[in-house]
Structure formats: structure tokens, C-alpha cells
């Protein structure tokens, strides 16, 4: 039995237990037990992974195993992880854990909410542990469908519109993706859909690559908020319930960057080098454009959604730089953005739950009435604008230094353009903090509000600690990811 299989089995078990549970306490019990188990599991996995690497295991993927699943099409359930997937699993389990606590007080059909929530996490975990194109695609779809129901039913505002828009755009993307994946499989001449095998064979003809690379990259790019396919993100996030926003922005958007890197670029390196500049320009636009758009937003969630466009743009930007440092930075940025944005959405949810508004013009003086949440909001803001000591700084600096090491002048110039986003980020974060957190309380109703409860504190503190831990001691994570991106980067550089 492979350890990785537990990442899928635990959510399945959770779904089963939720199904038979009778009251809210049982639901909560199942969720806490399950998400804690996942958190511990990912911790154990990290420990074992680092141990195996320290013992000199240099295989590209560890914990490998295969089960034939559909033999006539050679579809297998192939499991395996490297440092990138371990980091992503760690991130996902932290978000699932904190998301559980952030939706502790949910009243409306709690059981069903968590059922879909577990299915969503099942898809996410499944995606990160498999290395078979078809299985990855399947898990990707599993993660997508519950999103529609979760936003459409438990959301707020224009929830039907947003749910429909998000699902349609991502479904459109997965159509491109399916075409891309099948194209890769059939033109590679491989006997299975295993990524490692296809990369090993490396015989996808150039004209096929030039066709399928854009399909795959855009297919995943939509999920990673690539300009101009990012517009599902502001509406979707604004309408989604707290835990779903957290999981979606925190983890699901990372599927995009991960897929672009592991599938599109790894399997079609020549096309990536040939067409990279187009996507580099698009991602640079994402980075700057998202930041500028965030300045004028007045809804807390819209600010964070545009900020995500900017930060996720940086992920795709960095992987297209095709060098080890920038790519490592990209993965750290995925982790860092996942944690930060989850923290933001958690806090926004908690503030909205009390004040019933997300408009920064109406919120003011929150520091006085809910000091704990406000201090954490300021911390999240400072982390977001890349303050040293938090994960954002490590990620951004690794990306900028790595990108600037590129020999090509074009790459260095757009790196400078991308760095300018750090100033704009400071503008919108400080505007938000100055308006809604500081100042005098404008609305007397707010004076009655209470600060965070214990379940909210658990959620927020775990996230803050994770962000600070990654920001203060980044070297081990940096090394773990750096070693794992090397095979992929080498493929790209040598071709």
C-alpha cells in the first residue's frame, strides 16, 4: 500500500462518515478528525521525503507505484511525488484544515456543504499525487464540479451568475486541456500516459508541440488567472463562501501553475522555448494590470481577487523564465500566495460575518472593535506586500533575482517591469488598511461587535504561523523545491 493513496482515501472516508452523520457535532467531529489526519499525513510525507532524499535517493519521483486501471487505453493510476508536489500537498492540507475551522459556524445545510468541500479536496489531493495525464485530468474535473454547487448554493451576492461564469470558463479551459493532453499522448508515441515516460521518450514532433503547447498552457493558465482569462476570479471569489474562497484561491489556482509547469512546459520544452515570449508578455501584463486594478476596488474580496491575479501572474511569469532560481521562486510563490490569500479570505469572511459589508468605505476603525482580527489583517497585508520575515518576500525575491539572471536582455527588462508591482501592491494594501482597519468607528453598530472566537483564532493563527515560518526559515523549503525543479528546468534549457 502506497502512503500517497491515503491522501485520496481519507477524503473518501470523510465523505462516507459525513454521509452517515446525524447532527452538526458529528459533522464537525468528522471534519476536524479528517483534516487533522491529512495535516499530519502531509507532515509525515514531508519528513519521509526529505529523509529519502538525504539518504541519497535521486529518482525524479519518490513513492512510485502503478495500478492499471483501464488497460485497453493504457490508463493507469500512477502515483509519485517530488518536492514540488510535497510542497503543494503541505499547502493543501493546511488550507483544508484552516478552512474547516473558518466555516465552523456555517448553519445552512452544514452536512452537504462539507460533503462537497471534501469532494473538492479529494480532487485537489488526487491531482497532486498522480503523474498520469488522464488521472490528473480526472481529478482536476472532480475538483471543478463541486465548486459550482458550493458557490451557487452557499455563496453570496450574485452567486448564480458567478458560479455559472466560473464553471463555464473553467470548463472551457478543460476542453482545451483535454485536447492538449490527448494530443500529447498520441503524438508522443508513448505506451502509457505517464508523464515521466513521455518526458523520457521526448519525441513529440515540433509542429504538434506548437499546436498542443498553447492549448495546454492556456488550459491550465485560465485556472492560474492568466490575462485575459482571469475574469472569473473577481466575481467567483466575491460570491464564494469563505472556506471555498480559501480553497479555491489557496489551492485550486495553484493547479494552474503546477499544470503549466509539470505538463505543458516539461513535456513540450521546444515549444515552451519558442512560444514562451508570448506568454511572458501576457503574464507581465497580469502582474502589473492586476495590481493597478486592485487600487481602485472598494470591495475587500475584489481587492484580494485582483491581488491574486497579480501574484499568480508572477508564478506563471517565473516558470517561463526557465531557470532553476526563478522556477523555485515560482513554487514558493504558489505556497506563499496560497497561504496569504487563504488568510485574507478567512479574515474577510470573519469581518463580513460581523459587519455584513465588505465595502472599505463603510468599514472603519475595526482595530478598536476587533483588535485580534485587525492585527491579523495588517499582518496579512504586510505579508502580501512582501515584507521580509513573511513568505511573500522570499518568493518574490527568489523570482526577481532568478529572472534577472537570465542572459537575454528582453527577460531582464520585463523583470524590471514586473518588480514595479511591489510598489503598487503597497499602495492598495495600505489604502485598504488605512481606510477600514485604522481610524475612528463610523458606524455605531460596529461597537457592539465581538472579536474572534476560538475556532476563528485556530484558523487564523495556523495560517499566520505558516506564513511566518516560511518567511523566517526558507532554506529547507528552497532546497527541497530547488532540487525537484532541476530535472524539468534541465529539459527546458538543454533543448
Amino acid at each position, binding site marked *: 500500500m502506497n502512503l500517497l493513496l491515503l491522501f485520496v482515501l481519507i477524503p473518501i472516508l470523510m465523505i462516507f462518515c459525513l454521509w452517515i452523520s446525524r447532527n452538526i457535532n458529528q459533522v464537525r467531529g468528522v471534519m476536524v478528525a479528517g483534516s487533522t489526519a491529512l495535516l499530519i499525513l502531509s507532515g509525515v510525507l514531508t519528513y519521509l521525503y526529505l529523509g529519502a532524499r538525504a539518504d541519497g535517493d535521486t529518482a525524479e519521483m519518490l513513492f512510485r507505484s502503478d495500478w492499471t486501471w483501464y488497460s485497453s487505453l493504457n490508463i493507469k493510476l500512477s502515483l509519485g511525488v517530488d518536492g514540488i508536489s510535497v510542497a503543494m500537498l503541505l499547502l493543501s492540507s493546511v488550507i483544508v484544515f484552516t478552512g474547516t475551522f473558518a466555516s465552523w459556524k456555517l448553519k445552512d445545510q452544514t452536512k452537504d456543504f462539507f460533503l462537497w468541500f471534501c469532494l473538492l479536496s479529494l480532487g485537489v489531493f488526487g491531482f497532486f499525487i498522480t503523474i498520469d495525464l488522464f488521472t490528473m485530468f480526472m481529478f482536476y474535473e472532480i475538483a471543478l464540479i463541486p465548486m459550482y454547487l458550493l458557490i451557487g448554493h452557499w455563496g453570496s451576492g450574485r452567486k448564480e451568475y458567478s458560479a455559472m*461564469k466560473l464553471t*463555464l*470558463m473553467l470548463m472551457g479551459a478543460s476542453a482545451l486541456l483535454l485536447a492538449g493532453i490527448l494530443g500529447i499522448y498520441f503524438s508522443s508515441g508513448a505506451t502509457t500516459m505517464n508523464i515521466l515516460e513521455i518526458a523520457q521518450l521526448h519525441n513529440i514532433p515540433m509542429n504538434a508541440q506548437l499546436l498542443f503547447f498553447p492549448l495546454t498552457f492556456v488550459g491550465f493558465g485560465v485556472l492560474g488567472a492568466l*490575462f*485575459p482569462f*482571469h*475574469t*472569473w476570479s473577481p*466575481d467567483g471569489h466575491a460570491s464564494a463562501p469563505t472556506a471555498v474562497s480559501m480553497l479555491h484561491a489557496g489551492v485550486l489556482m495553484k493547479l494552474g501553475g503546477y499544470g503549466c509547469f509539470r505538463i505543458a512546459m516539461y513535456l513540450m520544452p521546444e515549444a515552451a522555448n519558442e512560444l514562451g515570449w508570448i506568454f511572458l508578455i501576457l503574464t507581465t501584463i497580469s502582474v502589473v*494590470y492586476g495590481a*493597478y*486594478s486592485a*487600487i*481602485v*476596488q472598494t470591495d475587500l474580496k475584489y481587492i484580494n481577487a485582483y491581488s491574486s491575479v497579480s501574484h499568480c501572474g508572477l508564478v506563471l511569469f517565473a516558470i517561463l523564465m526557465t531557470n*532553476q*532560481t526563478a522556477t523555485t521562486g515560482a513554487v514558493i510563490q504558489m505556497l506563499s500566495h496560497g497561504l496569504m490569500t487563504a488568510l485574507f479570505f478567512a479574515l474577510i469572511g470573519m469581518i463580513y460575518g460581523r459587519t455584513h459589508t465588505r465595502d472599505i468605505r463603510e468599514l472603519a*476603525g475595526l*482595530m*478598536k472593535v476587533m483588535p485580534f482580527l485587525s492585527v491579523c489583517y495588517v499582518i496579512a497585508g*504586510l505579508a502580501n*506586500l*512582501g*515584507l*521580509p*520575515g513573511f513568505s511573500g*518576500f*522570499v518568493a518574490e*525575491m*527568489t523570482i*526577481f*533575482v*532568478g529572472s*534577472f*539572471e537570465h542572459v537575454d536582455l528582453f527577460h*531582464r527588462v520585463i*523583470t*524590471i517591469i514586473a*518588480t*514595479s508591482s*511591489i*510598489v503598487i501592491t*503597497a*499602495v492598495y494594501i*495600505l*489604502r485598504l488598511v*488605512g481606510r477600514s*482597519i*485604522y*481610524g*475612528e468607528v463610523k458606524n455605531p453598530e460596529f461597537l457592539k461587535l465581538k472579536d474572534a472566537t476560538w475556532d476563528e483564532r485556530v484558523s487564523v493563527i495556523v495560517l499566520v504561523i505558516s506564513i511566518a515560518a516560511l518567511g523566517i526559515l*526558507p*532554506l529547507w523549503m*528552497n*532546497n527541497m523545491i*530547488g532540487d525537484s525543479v532541476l530535472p524539468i528546468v534541465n529539459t527546458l534549457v538543454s533543448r
Partner: protein
Amino acid sequence: MEYTLIILLLPAIMFLFLGLAGHKLKHKVAGLFGTISLGLVTCLSYFTAWEYFTSPRVNGVFEKIIPFNFEWLSFSEALHVDIGILLDPISVMMLIVISTVSLMVHIYSLGYMHGEKGFQRYYAFLSLFTFSMLGLVVATNIFQTYIFWELVGVSSYLLIGFYYTKPSAIAASKKAFIVTRFADLGFLIGILVLSFYSQTFSFVELMNGSSDAILTGAATQTFLGIGVLSWALGLMFIGAAGKSAMFPLHIWLPDAMEGPTPVSALIHAATMVVAGVYLVARMFYLYIGFAPGVLEIIAIVGAFTSLFSAIIACVQTDIKRVLAFSTISQIGFMMVALGVCTGMDSHEGLGYMASMFHLFTHAMFKALLFLGAGSIIHAVHSNEMKDMGGLRKFMPITHITFLIACLAIAGIPPFSGFFSKDEILAAAFKFNPAMGWTMTVIAGLTAFYMFRLYFNIFWGKEAKHHHTPHESPLTITIPLIILAIVTIFGGFIPFGHFITSDGLLYNIHLDPQVAITSVVVAVLSIAIATIFYKNKEQKIPAMLGEKLSGLHKAATKKFYIDEVYQFITHRIIFACISTPIAWFDRHIVDGFMNLMASSTQSLSYSIRKFQSGHVQQYAFVFLLGIIFIIGLILLVI
């Protein structure tokens, strides 16, 4: 000298402790915790300095010691960010300056902030600032400097916005952070460019000659007609100019006075704002060797800023703002001193020594001035000159110490400012007589506006007070007295024995011509100020103000630079960039997606008519289809 690590760790621990558990402590306990730990840091800093400067010289220079260094983050084989401690003459001097002023401010705040809400938070932030500033000066590599550079920026942001319910404080903190952040972008890009060519962040490797070959090679490359190293070092100077409030990035500093006064003394007068000067001094070897053109720009920017802000300081009425503009002007002096250097040896590099000397003396007397101003504000509950006047009778200690500081900054011997300013003037004259005379005139202006301030506060007409002002408590006056003593005797430190551009021993000798000129100018300016402002009726200034109303108004409005910024941020960035982009996103990009959805929908609506459910219609279409096919077959046959 591994114990230097404690100097860094102690404030960091104190920040975490007071930040997390502070609200459970009593005010006094939290304050004492912060102050005592900083007392220890100060003792250790002095001990470090004593041990460092008494250690034997190697080839006539003090060795660079790295007692502690660890790899924090690795980018590539060559580029890795270390966190460590580098001891060399300037970093050891900065340790002394920072710990001394910080300790004074800690003690002073016990009295000044007494009873304020958020007292523990205040001490936590002070510890955070001290930690970051110490980390900045002892950095072993340029990236560590950048890390702590950002941290001092955020501590400054938090402390300016300490009164977080006050709109002006919120605006000021935001402005300070964003302006310096913009400048830091220059610093960051400078680091990227420099490290791209040099392939190292380490100061020691950059400065010990081992990278010279690589750098000389890089110096031949150009980008847009300017050498790449000039770009790198010029961009770094933008970062330095932002922190050190050089024109046109100075606008945040006067507003930063919204913070509590001891904070202004510590951060916005003595330590953080000189970080830019420190950075240039730290990279001096590279500036001299590879980008002398940038040094000249630094001199010009410094001189212009100095003159510009000295003029503004002459007309401001808020005493903290006068001091803020005076700080900008004095930092301009330090920048000029660095900029006028033309070589590494003690003679051509005299300005380097002078700049560091002035940094040291200025930190002491400017901290004294700010703390004195705080004591006055504490007594009269106002920042405005019109609410003061005649205070010398009520506050003797504050009066005498403030006068000492005024004499020092005016450059009257034997106070410390005289010696350091004199070296700067000598260096400036050596560079170019025009520069020398400009700086002498600014020195005269300095004496004038400082004594305008002094007379307005302590002499002249007594304002009506709600209750009689009284001398401040001991926690406030003791730091004043200590700093006054340093200000009196600081000038006699044989600075050239410790810090020179090439590290070799250099005996300071006064240039009698320069010294006499500067003293005469200072005395004359003080005399004019006395005539203008000592009397109860200030007729002459009022008359002059009317005659030169245009200039007077412009200076009062700080030459409208704030309005220019307002225009750029609100009218251009907000209204002409962000708003259109956000509109474009919602209506064009998203509109296109919605259009696709709605056109699909309308298409399906029109097709839907075929599926009406009416059997007759189906039969009709069926029949038409058959006729059409039969017709087709017939035609083909």
C-alpha cells in the same frame, strides 16, 4: 566576538515578547523590560566598540571581522543571502549611535508616553525598530541590508501611525511607506543589476579587491549609453535618497512628524534617515572606483536638498517641522561630504570621514533637539510656535540643553557640530569653491532658523497658557542632560583615528580659513536672528515677509512639492491609470466573456424555435424536407 549576536537577538526577542504578551503586562513593567534589555544592548555595543578599536591594526587598518554568518536563502551557487554580522569601523560607530539614541529614547518615553493607550505596543515597535536598524548596519551583504532596510521602513510606518485613529497620522504613515517603497524599488533593481554582473552580494568580496577584475569588465558595458555599474549604483542611490529624504523624495519626512515625538527623535532624526548616507558610505569603494559620476550627482542632489529645505525651515511655524526640514538639510550636508570625495586616500577622501563624523554628532544633537521639543510640547500641549514664548523661566533644563544643541548645529565652537561641519566645508572647498560657498551659506541659514526657533520658544512674548508650564519629569530631563554632555564634548573625539576612507590613521587639523569664515557666518546669522526674533514685537520679519510675499508664501507651502505629488498620485495614477484599467477589465475583457455567453444564449434561443412541440409544424418541416430531397435527386438525375 560572538557575543555581538546578542546585540541583534535581544531586541528581536523583546519585540516578540512585548508584541505577543505585552497587553497582559502593566505599562511600567513593559516599559522597564524594553528599557533594561536595551540598556544591555547598549553596554554590549560599547564593549564591542572598545574591543574592536583597541584590537591591533593590520597594515594600518582595522580588520573587518565577521563573528557570525549563516546562509539564510540560496538563489544559486554564487548568489546566496546570508544573515550575519560584519564589524568594521563604520558599522561599529553606527552600533554606538543607534544604541545610545535608542536607549535615551526608551528612557525618555517612560515619562513622555506615560498613560498612553498602547504603551506596550509602543515599546514593542521600538524594539522592532532597534532590531531592524542594528541588523541593517551590521549586514554582511547587500541583500541583508535590503531585508533590514524594508524592516526599518515598516517599523517607521507602524510608529508614525501609532495614533491609528488620527486621520493625519494614518495619511502620514501611508505616505512615508509608499514614498520610501518607491525608492526601495530603485534599490532592489540596483541590487539585481549589480549582482547580475558581480555574481556576489557579499560586501567583503565586493570591496576587498577580489571582484575588481569582474567589475572593471562590467564597467565597460553600457545600457542606453550609461555604464551598467553607474546604473546599478545610481539606482541604489535612489533607494538611499528615499530613506534619507533627499529631494524630490523628501516629502514624507515632514509629515512623519505625526508620530510621537521620541519616535521622531530616534527614527526620523538620528538613525533611520541616515541609513541612506550609511548605504553610500558602505558602498563607497564601488562609487569611487566604478561610478565617480554618480558621486557628483550625489553631491549636487545633496547640496540642492540642503539649500531647499533650509529655506523652508526659515518660515515654518510648527517646531517639529522646522526640525524635520533642518534634518533634511543636515543629511544633505552628509551627502555632499560623500559626493565631493575624489579618491580613496585620506586627503581626497576627507569628505568620507567628515560625513561619518557629522552623522555621529548630528545624531546626538538632533536627538537632543527633538527630545527637547518633545519636552516643550509635553508642557504646552501644542506644536505651534505661537503657543510658546518665554518658556526659559519655566523650563530651565530644557532651555539650557536646547540652547547647547542650537549652538552645536549652528557650528559654534567648541560644540560638536562645529568640528564635523568644518570638515565638510573643508572638503567641499577642496572639491569646488562654489560648492564650498554654497554650503557655507546654508550653514549660515541653519544658524538663522535654529535661533529663530530658539527665540520664539524661549524668549519673546509669553503666550497664554491654560496652566503654567513646568519642567518635565526626570525620565525626560536625564536623557536631555546626557545628550547635551555628548553634544558638548563629542567634537573632541579624534574621529580620524577610527574612521577614514582608506582606513589609515588621519589627524584632523582645522583649516583656519574655513573655520574662521564659517564661525563668522554663523555668528552673524545668530545676530540677525537675535535682532529679528528676540523682542516681543517681531516687526522686521513681518515686514520682510510682506516685501517678499511671493517667496514667503512659496516657502511656507514647501514649494508646492506636496501638491505635485498629490497631482501625480490622484490625478494620474488613480484617475488616469487605475480607474481606466479597472473599467477596461470589467467592461472590455469581462464584457467579451459575457458577450460570448450571451451570444451563445441568443443563438440557442433562435434555434430553439425548431423544437416547438407542435406536431403539425414538425410534419410540415418533414414534408418540406422530403420535397427538397426528392427535388435534389430529380435535379441530379
